């Protein structure tokens, strides 16, 4: 974990209620699936947001506006400075990917898969991506994933773009392993539908984001884990769903 100041260089509305922000700062040691925790003026707790990309001192995050914190982020102008805790969480384990890993993202769960796809491609793998959204105007990153060289399928719940239905209605055959991030109902559906092993990224309300408060604990097959420190990524085999 590191604590440093980042400066907004760009903040763009890329889909309905969805923003891509670039910030310059110390991006050393940011891995796919890790997250940053952002201090915002007037709000007591920091806001956890996944690393979407990190390279050469530029951090990219993509977020959906759902409340006061993300609204504040959405209105930030270039030049604005934020206090970030970085290098949080375990991140995805790329060593298990096999040759043809499948990346399954839903809505605000798509961003962390971008840096993962990039690193997998750099390692010579050929990832597929299935990206799920509610409606066509919420779709983002279809082109970004294809530009990396991934085969991309988009799904929308109302069928206004791509395959009509959920991500689980469009899982391709022939993948070796999978990585997923998205809302919990989607993760549960993927857990049931997937035919291989894989890794899931979870969300939980956080007090600290760095393992000190036990605010984010969950039960797993291998014991209690803190989503913020021992997660957010858990292996399929260790997941114990709540209730």
């Amino acid at each position, binding site marked *: *974990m590191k604590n440093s100041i980042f400066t907004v260089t760009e903040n763009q509305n890329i889909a309905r209620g969805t923003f891509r922000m670039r910030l310059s700062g110390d991006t050393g040691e940011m891995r796919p699936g890790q997250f940053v925790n952002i201090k915002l003026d007037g709000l007591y707790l920091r806001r956890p947001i996944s690393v979407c990309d990190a390279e050469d001192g530029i951090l990219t995050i993509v977020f959906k506006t759902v409340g006061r914190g993300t609204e504040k982020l959405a209105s930030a102008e270039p030049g604005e400075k934020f206090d970030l805790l970085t290098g949080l969480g375990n991140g995805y384990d790329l060593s298990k990917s096999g040759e043809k890993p499948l990346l399954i993202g839903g809505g605000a769960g798509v961003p962390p898969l971008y840096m993962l796809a990039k690193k997998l491609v750099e390692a010579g793998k050929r990832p597929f991506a299935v990206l799920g959204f509610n409606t066509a105007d919420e779709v983002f990153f279809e082109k970004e994933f294809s530009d990396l060289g991934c085969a991309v399928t988009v799904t929308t719940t109302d069928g206004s773009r791509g395959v009509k239905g959920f991500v689980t209605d469009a899982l391709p055959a022939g993948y070796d392993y999978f990585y997923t991030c998205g809302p919990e109902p989607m993760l549960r559906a993927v857990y049931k539908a997937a035919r291989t092993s894989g890794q899931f990224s979870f969300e939980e*309300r956080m007090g600290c984001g760095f393992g000190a408060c036990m605010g984010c604990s969950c039960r797993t097959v291998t014991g209690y884990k803190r989503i913020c420190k021992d997660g957010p990524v858990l292996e399929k085999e260790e997941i114990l769903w709540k209730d």
Partner: protein
Amino acid sequence: MERLKVDLCGITLDNPVIPASGTFGYGYEFAELYDINILGTFSFKGTTREPRFGNPTPRIAECTAGMINAVGLQNPGVEKVISEELPRLKKCFGKPVMANVSGFSVEDYAYTCARLDTCPQVGWLEVNVSCPNVHGGGMSFGTDPASAAEVTRAVKAVTAKPVIVKLSPNVTDVVSIAKACEDAGADGISLINTLLGMRIDLKKRRPVIASVMGGFSGPAVFPVALRMVYQVSRAVGVPVVGMGGVSTAEDVIEMMMAGACAVEVGAANLVDPFACKKIIEDLPAAMDRYGIKNLKEITEGAR
């Protein structure tokens, strides 16, 4: 620095700043960031006789200038604390640590304290009487002077270490409880624990916290905490450790002017992991601004 030194039940602290129980784990997360030996001491996560997972999640809710937590005393149990956490802590913390203890019966408290009494690393036992009394109808030990005194007596009987009883603010008369603990042999009083609170998620129309209610803390509770520290430190002769909403060096000084001899810092560590380090570094300049030569004199003057 001599002017920051204070005494807590016969042990000298290099400064009065103590991360509060539950907000500092067993220290390692912070030891990755800074040398935690700069702290006066710290109070480790509330430890119980048996391991506990705690409450279902969500356990955290944001509030204006504060937060609610309903962690529910997740901890590995006293045996693991002794066999794993304390040896690991030894590598990054060389000072006496404050052991925070919780229980659901008088015997639980006594058992856990007796076990921790055998640990040379433990300087003080901070006995949190805010837990529900499972044998006494579920009311917290700390809301009734007689049960708080009973826990105090039971713990004092099994340890030679200073016993600091940590009080809940969720009571009508905190002074009577503090006095009952002092009469039962408490070597010190610490307060306040969290205030019972709740939030509702407007979109879902249900409480944010899975277990509905939780403990409210953070800067918003500072005035309530300060008031209680003031009342208690005027009523008892033993040292008082003040906490609740402390986030700056000025807050530490204010707590000491209300009568505290040392000050714990809770939620602030979660939003700024360097909070205690900054407070300690800021103290000398803040003291200069208010003409304070050394911190000890504040508490002595206040009481």
